[in-house]
């Protein structure tokens, strides 16, 4: 499903009015949800209908997470979380300038990287030294979020001399468009011996590679928290307004039971994400634990949240007439991106022992 037409008139026209459970068809026609120039403007253009202002570069992680969550809630058609929580901080940490506009990232250890200007080396294999760090990069960056729309993609990869971070502008790559269940762009960028100038390359400590994975996972978890919240908003509005058997749905015990579970599950995800904010700013062993827990919980809760929201909406929720799909298709997509719950649960549990479990759980707040 990677060649949908883009109808620029319908991009960004959905409003988020949770007080109206029955939505006029045209107001919610989001068939073209791929980013184009207009949609992307929501990152930087605060007057767009779905705008969530991109936080300033010195915002705390808690503020960044709140913005990402809001972007998730509104299904903002732009890589806000990717830009604010992943690409920008990584660039800063690597000492590279931060470009304007929407950014994306790719963690791609499988790229083939050589020196563009190899130097003769008396030791080691040929090509293990370069006259400078200009690189020749070959391979594919798979499913880059908003690849086509990003002004730059931050790539973390393994070079012959160790891990590197470099930036590339997507138009230098051969781009194969793709998307996720929510039709958010996930583009493959094919690089054929692409020359990346030394000025755009930084050698990095292996920890930064780790941090990139953690940041990406946490950004995704924050988006999930937002979409989960949207499911709650829409479901409460719907069950309060819709009448069957002469009573609002919300008056039925069985409906209350399910709805409460939905509310709870969303609260749990939100709490998990928030728990990671302070550790990420202050550093230390709690970072890995809290981020792994946040993504595990967010991904693990997605199915239940989407299930209940759809069940309580009845048939209307399955349609494009109603905005619920904006949230649930994102939940289903995002839970698998940047590591699913199996991956992160395993990372979370690996270092734990009977003696360290409780101390680990209480390192935060």
């Amino acid at each position, binding site marked *: 499903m990677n060649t949908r037409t883009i109808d620029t008139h319908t991009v960004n026209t959905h409003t988020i009015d949770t007080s109206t459970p029955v939505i006029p068809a045209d107001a919610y026609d989001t068939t073209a949800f791929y980013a184009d120039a207009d949609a992307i403007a929501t990152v930087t253009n605060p007057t767009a209908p779905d705008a969530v202002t991109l936080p300033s570069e010195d915002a705390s992680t808690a503020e960044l997470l709140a913005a990402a969550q809001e972007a998730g809630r509104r299904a903002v058609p732009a890589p806000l979380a990717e830009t604010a929580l992943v690409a920008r901080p990584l660039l800063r940490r690597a000492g590279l300038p931060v470009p304007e506009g929407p950014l994306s990232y790719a963690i791609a250890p499988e790229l083939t990287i050589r020196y563009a200007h190899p130097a003769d080396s008396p030791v080691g294999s040929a090509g293990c030294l370069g006259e400078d760090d200009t690189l020749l990069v070959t391979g594919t960056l798979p499913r880059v979020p908003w690849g086509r729309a990003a002004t730059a993609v931050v790539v973390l990869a393994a070079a012959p001399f160790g891990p590197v971070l470099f930036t590339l502008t997507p138009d230098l790559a051969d781009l194969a468009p793709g998307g996720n269940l929510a039709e958010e762009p996930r583009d493959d960028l094919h690089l054929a011996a692409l020359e990346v100038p030394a000025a755009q390359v930084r050698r990095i400590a292996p920890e930064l590679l780790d941090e990139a994975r953690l940041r990406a996972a946490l950004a995704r978890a924050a988006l999930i928290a937002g979409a989960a919240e949207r499911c709650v908003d829409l479901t409460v509005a719907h069950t*309060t307004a819709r009448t069957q058997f002469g009573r609002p749905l919300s008056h039925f015990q069985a409906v209350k039971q399910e709805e409460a579970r939905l*509310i709870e599950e969303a609260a749990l995800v*939100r709490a998990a994400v928030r728990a990671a904010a302070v550790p990420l700013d202050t550093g230390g062993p709690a970072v890995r634990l809290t981020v792994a827990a946040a993504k595990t*919980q967010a991904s693990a809760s997605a199915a239940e949240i989407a299930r209940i929201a759809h069940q309580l909406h009845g048939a209307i929720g399955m349609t494009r007439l109603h905005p619920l799909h904006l949230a649930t298709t994102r939940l289903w997509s995002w839970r698998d991106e940047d590591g699913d719950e199996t991956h992160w649960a395993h990372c979370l549990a690996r270092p734990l022992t009977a003696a360290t479990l409780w101390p680990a*759980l*209480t390192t935060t707040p």
Partner: protein
Amino acid sequence: MPSPVAFPDVALPESARRLRGEVRAFLDEERARGTVLGRPDSWLAGWDPGFSRRLAERGWVGMALPTEYGGAGRGFLERYVVIEELLAAGAPVSAHWVSDRQAGPSVLQHGTEEQRRFFLPRIAAGQCFFSIGMSEKSSGSDLASVATRAERTADGWRLTGTKMWTGGAHVNDYAIVLARTDDAEDRHAGLSQFIVDLRAPGVRVEPIRLMSGEHRFNAVHLEGVDVPDGMLLGRRGDGWQQVTGELAFERSGPERYLSTFPLLVSLLRELEQRRATAEQLTQVGILTARLLSLRQLSLGVAAALDAGASPDTQAALVKDLGTRLEGTLVDTVRSILPTPADPYATPGSHPELLAFALLHSPGYTLRGGTNEILRGIITRGLEQHS
């Protein structure tokens, strides 16, 4: 108006970190004495008045009570740190549990000055233990239907009726009893609370055994028990408001998600002796993520209480999530490391702890208000808000 399911962010102060260290050191000493066995559900089943008194000597019972009444005046967050350490360790805290959690705050809030001066210092000293006398045979979820009656006498009240499921009534000193004092159109009016001396004439405590065979519960028959005027708790007719306020304390604590935590610790100990598979670790990770997330929410309720708010909806939410997790934890532990639960295995061994947790498991989602009722509270809270 903030959403009734919004939770404040919590930052535990440095003093809480120190406190945690002190509690851990205390628990190590107690482990060496053999009093802390790491058993699940220790706040229901771990009855050890000696342990309660030693805690009290450190100022860790009635911690949130003001110092003028013998408390430590340390607030709900610091109390939280202490009780979560005790629960995670499976320490025997059931003797003072209800007096610390409920009776103390309730007497402080509604009691007369005389009641405060009498009960609170004794509670904080770990020398006065309470039971809760709310439920009856026909009044479970529908608590307002209680049939126990309090008739006016010359200098007090005479109570007649039968309370059910009264935990610890056979070993505790007092019970806070909800009784009808006045007939009223509105079922929630005309109820009052009394502090009943469990050794007073006319009180007959009849054991009800759990399916594990343990004796924790009772039917408490009140056969014309004379209660002096001074033991009316709060105002005549305000019983319902008082009880619902009390439930916020009863529902919000870490005991609502940590009852079976010691079983997870036991599982990890078992796994360390073999080589855990990736699948086993993944399941442990999923439980851990949920525990960590729930703890954030639970701390949020404590922070709200500390700030003087009444986070009823949030407390209901945490309790529903938490108590379901307690049950899920037992099932998941069982499937991660298939082990036949065995109540006759060596006490403290994994099969024995599993049996204990399993036999207690139906209670997690019942006690303190069933999950179905709690979910009604949650959705009502949100509907009224939206």
